[in-house]
């Protein structure tokens, strides 16, 4: 615990020196400010100019933007881990009392905690969709995505260049909410392999009053996220050994 605290102190110092770490906090805050203060005026402007009602797609916008928060935290952490691996820093951490396991645990808990906190602020105070207890479903599921993304990058990229290339693929995660809100019935089945499908689907079901179904969807989504986390963790451990 004390060792992780030293790393946390170092990260806070780094955060002030390394603007990207700061962006992991500022990025989600910017998403929140956009939704809270700019979304409504923008939708009025778009409706006047292009006769397109953005507010009728507010739930979709809320879920799409929610995807950004763990994506930012996850990609940032994954690239940081690759940077530290490229510079052989992980080998140094491994021989300190922190140990290699402690290092990974710390690296993954920080983005998950940040993503969870920022997502909660965003969902509770965003103000474009009604607050309901079932918002816990997308909140918990998206928080699990940050460590998945970080581990995925660190496990499958040989270095930071491959990490950057793979982070482009993370853009695929935006397809999840699009499928849930816009693609008709049977084609939605394509989305079940995307982790971001499950938070949007459980939220949409809860919003349509299907609470039982939403809970089942959340359960399946949670199991799927755990499975992905396990696979990414195994792949990462294998690469490190």
């Amino acid at each position: 615990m004390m060792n992780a605290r030293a790393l946390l102190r170092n990260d806070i110092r780094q955060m002030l020196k390394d603007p990207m770490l700061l962006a992991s906090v500022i990025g989600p805050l910017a998403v929140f400010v956009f939704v809270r203060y700019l979304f409504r005026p923008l939708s009025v402007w778009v409706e006047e100019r292009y006769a397109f009602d953005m507010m009728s797609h507010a739930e979709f916008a809320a879920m799409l933007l929610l995807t950004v928060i763990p994506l930012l935290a996850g990609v940032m952490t994954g690239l940081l881990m690759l940077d530290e691996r490229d510079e052989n820093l992980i080998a140094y951490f491994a021989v300190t009392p922190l140990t290699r396991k402690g290092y990974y645990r710390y690296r993954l808990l920080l983005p998950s905690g940040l993503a969870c906190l920022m997502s909660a602020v965003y969902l509770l105070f965003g103000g474009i969709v009604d607050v309901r207890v079932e918002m816990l479903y997308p909140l918990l599921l998206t928080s699990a995505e940050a460590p998945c993304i970080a581990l995925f990058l660190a496990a499958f990229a040989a270095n930071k260049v491959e990490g950057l290339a793979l982070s482009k693929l993370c853009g695929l995660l935006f397809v999840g909410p699009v499928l849930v809100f816009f693609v008709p019935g049977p084609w939605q089945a394509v989305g079940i392999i995307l982790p971001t499908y499950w938070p949007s689907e459980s939220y949409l079901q809860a919003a349509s009053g299907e609470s039982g179904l939403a809970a089942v969807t959340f359960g399946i989504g949670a199991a799927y996220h755990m499975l992905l986390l396990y696979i990414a963790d195994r792949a990462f451990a294998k690469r490190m050994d």
Partner: protein
Amino acid sequence: MRAMNALIYDIRFQFRHGFYAVYVLVSALYVLLLYYVSPDYKERTALLLTFSDPGAIGLILAGGIVLLEKDQGVHDSLFVTPLRLHEYLLAKALSIAAISTVSAWGIQVCAIGLPAAPVPFTLGVLLTSALFTLLSIGIVARARSINGFIWLSQLYSLPLAVPLLGLFQIGPSSLYRIFPTQGSLVLLGAAHEQVMIEEYLYALVVLSMGVAAAYGWAYRSFERRVLARIGKGADLT
């Protein structure tokens, strides 16, 4: 000959690290997305996507490559060979422009059809890609970590995104004409609409001037901040 070897090496490096595979998937995703976009907005969306992704691919990737080379101390041995800095920069810009061009053509042909004016469209992709690649190299010379670089690259490239406002008829269009990326939008837009010859010339001149300025800046930055430190070993700061 040296420049050609450097270019072939860079293309091989990018292929080996999965850039081409990733861009096949990303381009396929864009084609799928455009399939669902209403015909009224399809061409404008395609223009926006081509500019911001295959066009600007070098902004992140070029910097990532240079940062890895810095960490591995590649420059120490590379620049004791007869390879000149301008050949190195040219190889980086051309190799990344090759991915941009293949991806932009793939998206255009699969989602909309053959571009109305193929030569201006291709020149638009090549020059836009070179502009962002050279900008990225200038930025990465100032960065120490990958995350710091990504943040700086967003900051430095923000002014280049200003002409996109013109696509949505925001602000006076004459204001955007001083930005090199306004030239990119004109040339890429030639895929879908007829453009007057004077407009082509304006776009080529303003974009080429932007590329030349970015080249000068990248050259100077690399020379002062990377080459000047050669001999001090891998940059582990």
